[in-house]
């Protein structure tokens, strides 16, 4: 079989104004690349950190997209390659969420998970019989088939901020048994929790040349036995990791801390003592907490939102991330707001969770937008987001020093941020 030169692209998106810029090495493209046959020679460009060279020779182009805000840029890239006579494929989360639109802009749309399926796709390409749609929705490959990602494709220096490498993204499971209101994961990855075999997780994780990871699974709190085994198994690796929610159980939290839990994303959805105690229990185990606060739900009045913002000051969060309710397709939020005729903006570039695209129940869209801006400004008024991140960084660095795993900053890159030369004394904030 002759080599196929495949150009794999992760389209850029507009970062949220006023927030600290961080470009993490994307997970989807390298997970996809790992499923390609050996005779496919992959060249990867993450447009968020480097320009696309449209003249680079290739036989086939593949767009990998995660966010709704990448979709329209993906179409522009496809148009540019079409002008050069190239065939373009698309896949990934947002290709699935926006499949009806996406299929109009590319030559071939891949829906579903690619493990065990790309040999057939590449054979079709070689024969000149690439299908318009490869539809594997709802047909999950065996979770055992999920292997290590092609992290060798990353240009590592581009995922580095002033000498500090960004975390590597990692997944220990797919699917989700919950049906949370604003989330599409159960549609995309199935409504059944599909944990990877522990030995595969350990082997995969051990092979990553980065001590800091972000375990991107939707929620680790889906199967206590698996969680327990997972944390026991990865503890000897001495990795430090970020994750979404961990089971609220003393034994599990203790095991998570021993396994290297650095900080978690925890939804703060009300001002209850339960939330306050939940955050405290993480902290008691040495685990930091980044609160995720969704604004604009139907049960929130202006006063509720202001109270929620004030409450954050009482619960000692290490970081907070505010988003506005966004009706992504294939979520209950989308269905509800669509039926009620409350979605007024279907421009996917605006679906960045920072822009109001629907009519809130208790206020105007403009007022919700103001409250969103107020929330960010209020939480970070005394200490910037970058400073709070630095505090968390110091915590993990100290733990690594104790364990002998700390790697000093790369002095070569001290004046660079994601490949660009910067003044290292200036703040790293989007304009």
């Amino acid at each position, binding site marked *: 079989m002759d080599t196929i030169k495949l150009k794999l692209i992760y389209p850029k998106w507009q970062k949220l104004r006023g927030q600290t810029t961080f470009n993490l090495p994307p997970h989807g493209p390298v997970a996809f690349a790992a499923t390609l046959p050996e005779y496919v020679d992959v060249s990867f460009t993450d447009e968020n950190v480097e320009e696309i060279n449209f003249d680079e020779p290739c036989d086939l182009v593949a767009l990998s997209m995660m966010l709704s805000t990448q979709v329209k840029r993906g179409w522009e890239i496809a148009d540019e390659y079409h002008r050069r006579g190239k065939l373009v494929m698309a896949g990934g989360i947002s290709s699935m969420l926006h*499949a009806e639109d996406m299929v109009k802009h590319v030559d071939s749309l891949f829906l579903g998970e690619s493990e065990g399926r790309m040999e057939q796709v590449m054979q079709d390409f070689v024969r000149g019989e690439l299908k318009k749609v490869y*539809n594997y*929705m*709802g047909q999950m490959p065996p979770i055992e088939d999920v292997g290590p990602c092609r992290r060798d494709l990353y240009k590592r220096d581009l995922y580095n901020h002033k000498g500090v490498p960004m975390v590597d993204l990692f997944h220990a499971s797919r699917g989700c048994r919950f*049906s*949370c209101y604003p989330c599409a994961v159960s549609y995309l990855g199935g409504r059944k929790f599909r944990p990877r075999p522990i030995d595969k997780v350990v082997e995969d994780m051990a092979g990553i040349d980065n001590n800091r990871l972000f375990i991107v699974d939707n929620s680790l709190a889906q199967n206590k036995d698996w969680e327990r085994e997972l944390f026991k198994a990865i503890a000897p690796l001495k990795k430090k990791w970020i994750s979404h929610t961990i089971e609220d159980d003393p034994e599990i939290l203790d095991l998570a801390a021993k396994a290297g839990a650095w900080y978690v994303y925890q939804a703060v959805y009300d001002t209850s003592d339960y939330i306050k105690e939940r955050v405290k229990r993480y902290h008691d185990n040495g685990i930091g907490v980044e609160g995720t606060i969704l604004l604009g*739900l139907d049960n929130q009045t202006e006063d509720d939102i202001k109270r929620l913002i004030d409450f954050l000051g009482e619960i000692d969060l290490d970081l907070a991330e505010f988003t506005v309710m966004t009706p992504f397709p294939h979520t209950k939020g989308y*269905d*509800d707001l669509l*039926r009620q005729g409350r979605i007024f903006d279907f421009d996917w570039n605006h679906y960045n969770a920072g822009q109001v695209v629907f009519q809130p129940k208790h206020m105007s869209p403009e007022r919700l937008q103001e409250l969103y801006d107020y929330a960010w400004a209020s939480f970070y008024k005394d200490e910037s987001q970058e400073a709070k991140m630095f505090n968390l960084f110091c915590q993990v660095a100290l733990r690594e020093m104790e364990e002998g795993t700390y790697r000093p900053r790369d002095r070569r890159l001290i004046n660079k941020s994601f490949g660009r030369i910067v003044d290292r004394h200036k703040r790293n904030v989007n304009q």
Partner: protein
Amino acid sequence: MLRHRRSPSNNMKVPQEYYDEIFEFRGQWDMPSACGLKIREVEGLTYVIVTEMYQENPGTSVTYAGRSLAEQICEAKGLKLSDIIYLECTPDTNSKLSFYDEEYFRVDFSGERPAYTQMSADELHRILSHKAS
């Protein structure tokens, strides 16, 4: 209205009162999908009530499936889309999660996009009090 006591569980199982049968359908991109289904004859009108099954639906939601689901039901049950009154139900699942309360919407597929009208409890009760056809 069907009302259920809230329990602390969040398994979100849809109570069986909401449907007479589980209707399996081809969702978006032919995804195997399922919804609850009730059909009622009331005063010479045929009411088709589809219920979202959440975790028990492996594929596309009833709202996203929209007209395609209505057509599949009509084909399976020997009905004409233009002759039925089509209702979407989001059931109360006894969930501790917010936003999973019972709601009913009448759906009109005659335009380019479906048009939704929320139904009152009284209207709904009158329909549901009739026996299965």
